[in-house]
């Protein structure tokens, strides 16, 4: 494998020092002269007609400078799926109707936050309450309340996938089973509440600083909803305090900040409260999953039929993508010769669900993995063995979707089994203790152009200077995952420079090259990384030519950028410093600066993604029989992310995904009643703390992804999936309670224990009857 000087090395994040000092400015840290403070009025009802809005009292409150309702807007619908305009179902402010508690109705901008808050209470909204629906099964009935006139069925997206002959497959199976799973919604719970600050420039352009994952998408949709041109909007992403999918759309406060800045001529800032984030914020889709699967006696999968209903809440948001991806993830991990999927995205009167770390995979793979374990038990096969028997490998084709390129899945399963002492523990752990497995696969960015961008998916511009430095410009958005550092590493590696030699400007739609679709779906390292490599190669061609001419080199010489020099590979003395080489190129071009642009757009890569990451995880738990409390003691992870570019970042992503997965499995949920969220704060929304975290062991399976920059691909998002099924399987192993209805709460465990008494123990005995502890071979 290629030797790198910066890739894979322990390079600290380049933004860490300013963050450690508290000097990194996030949107809410910014202040502009004359700035107004905005607040949003939200619907108190889950479903109602707006009969009248009277803003006069609010507008006349001293200190209030602007009040807007939908009447003050161009009333243009928006949504991320521009390719299919019929899916764009949202207005920045509600017109005629509200569809969930928290739906945005009006906004106020005032000279301070207290006055803005007071003004909200002075807005009189006359509602006529409508029947509401909170459950997908009821929402699909013909007599159910209809949320959107254009969609009388409440089913806004239908996605079908089919290959092979599923019915024939079931007929040929020795063992067929059907299960229904329900999974719940959880919050992204990024620590930084959303915030946006807008001002009007001298030429009428609006500049908006916003806590977003998708500067370019915000630019385009803000322009269209305001009735302006794309270039009339400049989006700048300051430091962002996490996103996890929750900040990947245009949102009402961004629209209102821009509109009100335009109307008042003053900068306007909106910052959400944590309560607003929990009450009305985006969330992971709750789903019902019906899965039927057929096996041969020896554990070979023959067919799978998966039907999923996604509880989308009141608007589509990123639901269409989640619906598509659920079907794609349902066919991942194992070989399914016959596969059928039907996904339905359903409107209910709840806050809209959207993208969240894993993007459909945590839900889809929960069903896959739990059902795999049930089948393994019924067929008398170890859960590890049944996975190895069916595991996807490099070169596998998923019809109409993709061909799997690099794949370390088999090795991941083998390693995690060995690391955790699987066979030994699966046989010897006492009642109340358990060990379980979950696996994942995930995408490295999407191929499907739902945003209908006319630009490359990712782009980079590289400017090099005779002082030996380089300036990297890209619209890619670092939201805390560390992409700025990774992209700098890639450029430094390509140009043979150090991290200190690279300057960077990122995520400013007026300054950085069009385009970039943003940070989601684990796309940045592969796509923006490839764009950086592409630009760097063009720079190198120029430098190589100059050095070659300067030293009158034989044309057969290979030239390289290394250690701050541009030199012949076999004769490093034939070379120049990087800066001297840049100066030579400039001289040859009458002073023109040396600049190159690179881009990446996946082509010929199927429908889903250019590359998949894989991995497996084992959890060991202890369950208190008296209280039903689950303590996750230890976790083992083996994963395949291609080349590791920044080891500390990869470790951090993995540990962070375990925190999120732990919360998803055991403690986090929205407690809702009649569309109202009852636990809209961190005291009642139980996110794991430092004291809840298990001991964790990680191993990277070496693979090299040909489509990725330096062999890299997805990392850290796929790992949102395996934790919940691994814990769930371990809880089953410990108690006999098989959770098909997340989260796994003490109540559910105790109810099971009471019902079954010692039956749990019996099921454990049969589970272990023919297992023998023997070490796994590492391939």
């Amino acid at each position, binding site marked *: 494998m290629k030797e790198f000087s910066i890739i894979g090395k322990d390079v*600290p*994040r380049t*933004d*860490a*020092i300013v*963050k*450690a*000092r*508290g*000097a*990194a*400015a*996030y949107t*809410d*840290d910014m*202040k502009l002269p004359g700035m107004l403070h905005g607040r949003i009025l939200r619907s108190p009802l889950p479903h109602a007609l707006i009969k009248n809005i009277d803003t006069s009292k609010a507008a006349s409150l001293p200190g209030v400078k602007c009040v807007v309702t939908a009447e003050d807007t161009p009333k243009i619908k928006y949504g991320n799926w521009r390719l299919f305009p019929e899916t764009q179902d949202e207005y920045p402010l509600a017109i005629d109707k509200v569809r969930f508690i928290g739906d945005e109705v009006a906004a106020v901008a005032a000279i301070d936050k207290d006055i803005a808050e007071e003004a909200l209470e002075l807005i009189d909204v006359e509602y006529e309450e409508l029947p509401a629906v909170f459950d997908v099964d009821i929402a699909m009935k013909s007599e159910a309340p209809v949320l959107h006139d254009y969609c009388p069925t409440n089913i806004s997206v239908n996605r079908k996938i089919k290959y092979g002959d599923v019915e024939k497959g079931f007929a040929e199976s020795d063992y067929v089973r059907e299960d229904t799973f329900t999974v719940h919604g959880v919050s*992204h*719970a*990024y*620590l*930084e*509440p959303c915030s946006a600050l807008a001002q009007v420039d001298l030429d009428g352009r609006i500049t908006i600083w916003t806590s977003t994952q998708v500067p370019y998408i915000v630019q385009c949709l803000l322009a269209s909803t305001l009735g302006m041109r794309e270039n009339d909007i400049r989006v700048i992403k300051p*430091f*962002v*305090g*996490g996103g*996890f999918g929750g900040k990947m759309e245009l949102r009402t406060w961004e629209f209102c900040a821009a509109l009100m800045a335009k109307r008042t001529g003053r900068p306007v800032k909106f910052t959400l*409260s*944590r*309560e607003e984030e929990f009450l009305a914020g985006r969330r992971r889709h709750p789903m019902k999953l019906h899965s039927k699967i057929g096996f041969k006696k020896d554990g070979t999968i023959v067919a799978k039929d998966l039907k999923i209903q996604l509880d989308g809440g009141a608007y589509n948001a990123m639901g269409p993508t989640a619906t598509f991806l659920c079907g794609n993830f349902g066919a991942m991990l194992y070989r399914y010769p016959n596969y059928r999927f039907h996904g339905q995205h359903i409107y209910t009167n709840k806050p809209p669900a959207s993208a969240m770390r894993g993007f459909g995979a945590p839900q889809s793979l929960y069903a896959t993995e739990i059902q795999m374990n049930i089948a393994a038990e019924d067929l008398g096969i170890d859960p590890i063995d049944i996975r190895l028997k069916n595991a996807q490998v490099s070169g596998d084709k998923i019809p109409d979707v993709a061909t799997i390129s690099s794949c370390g899945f088999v090795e991941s399963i083998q390693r995690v089994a060995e690391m955790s002492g699987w066979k030994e523990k699966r046989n010897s752990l006492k009642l109340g203790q358990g060990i379980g497995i979950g696996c994942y696969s995930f995408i490295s960015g999407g191929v499907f152009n739902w945003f209908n961008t006319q630009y490359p998916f990712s782009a980079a511009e590289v400017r090099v200077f005779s002082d030996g430095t380089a300036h990297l410009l890209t619209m890619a958005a670092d*939201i*805390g*995952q*560390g992409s700025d550092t990774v992209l700098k590493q890639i450029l430094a590696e390509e140009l043979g420079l150090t991290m200190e030699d690279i300057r960077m400007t990122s995520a400013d739609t007026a300054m950085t090259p069009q385009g970039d679709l943003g940070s989601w779906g684990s796309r940045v390292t592969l796509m923006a990384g490839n764009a950086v490599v592409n630009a760097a190669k063009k720079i190198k061609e120029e430098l190589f030519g100059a050095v070659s001419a300067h030293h009158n080199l034989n044309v057969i010489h290979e030239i390289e950028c290394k250690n701050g020099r541009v030199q012949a590979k076999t004769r490093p003395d034939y070379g120049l410093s990087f800066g001297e080489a840049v100066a030579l190129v400039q001289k040859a071009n009458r002073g023109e600066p040396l600049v190159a642009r690179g881009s990446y757009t996946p082509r010929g890569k199927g429908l889903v993604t250019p590359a998949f990451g894989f991995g497996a995880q084992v959890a060991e738990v202890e369950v208190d029989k008296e209280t039903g409390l689950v303590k996750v003691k230890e976790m083992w992870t083996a994963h395949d992310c291609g080349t590791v570019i920044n080891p*500390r*970042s990869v*470790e*951090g992503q*993995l*540990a*962070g*995904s*375990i*925190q*999120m997965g732990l919360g998803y499995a055991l403690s986090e949920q929205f407690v809702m009643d009649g569309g109202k969220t009852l636990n809209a*704060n*961190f*005291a009642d929304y139980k*996110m794991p*703390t*430092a*004291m809840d*975290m298990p001991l*964790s062991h990680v191993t990277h399976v070496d693979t090299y992804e040909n489509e990725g920059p330096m062999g890299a691909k997805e990392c850290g998002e796929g790992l949102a999936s395996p934790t919940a099924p691994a814990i769930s399987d371990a809880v089953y192993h410990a108690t006999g309670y098989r959770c098909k209805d997340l989260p796994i709460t003490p109540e559910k465990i105790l109810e099971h224990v009471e019902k079954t008494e010692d039956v749990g123990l019996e099921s454990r005995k049969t589970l272990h009857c023919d297992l023998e502890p023997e070490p796994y071979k590492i391939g």
Partner: protein
Amino acid sequence: MKHRINFKVNGDEYSLAVEPWKTLNEALREDLNLTGTKLGCGTGDCGACTVIVDGKSVSSCLTLAVSVDGKSVTTVEGLAPSGDELHPIQEAFVKTGAIQCGFCTAGMEMAALHLLNHNPSPNEAEIRAGLSGHLCRCTGYSQIVEAISVAAETMKNSQSEEEEQ
């Protein structure tokens, strides 16, 4: 009616007239422009707004500004007063990768400072307990725990060097 308060922040003296409902978090962020201290929830649950008041770590979002009259406040900006060097806690956070999005960082560092002031050699369980009032969504806490144990070592070593001299 506004109340006059006199207090020290990171060694500097300030005099402010504040509404009785103004929080210390608002006074720091809005009046003094010390925006290193964050606001993550406003209900004292996430720890992102933690500062030290007269040696005690407090949630600045739950502390009224009037209550710090005559007191001394340390914020993240006060950790390393010189422009060049980082405090050992900050240095350890940078080195171990304990910072991702960075929004919880200031609160975590103040928690670390408070912990190490009271317990210079904490074991892992004590570090985790010391962080239990702080939420992080990015790191899974492991590199933060590592950072604090690295910082504890550095601080102990520099202290014993000072004592030897």
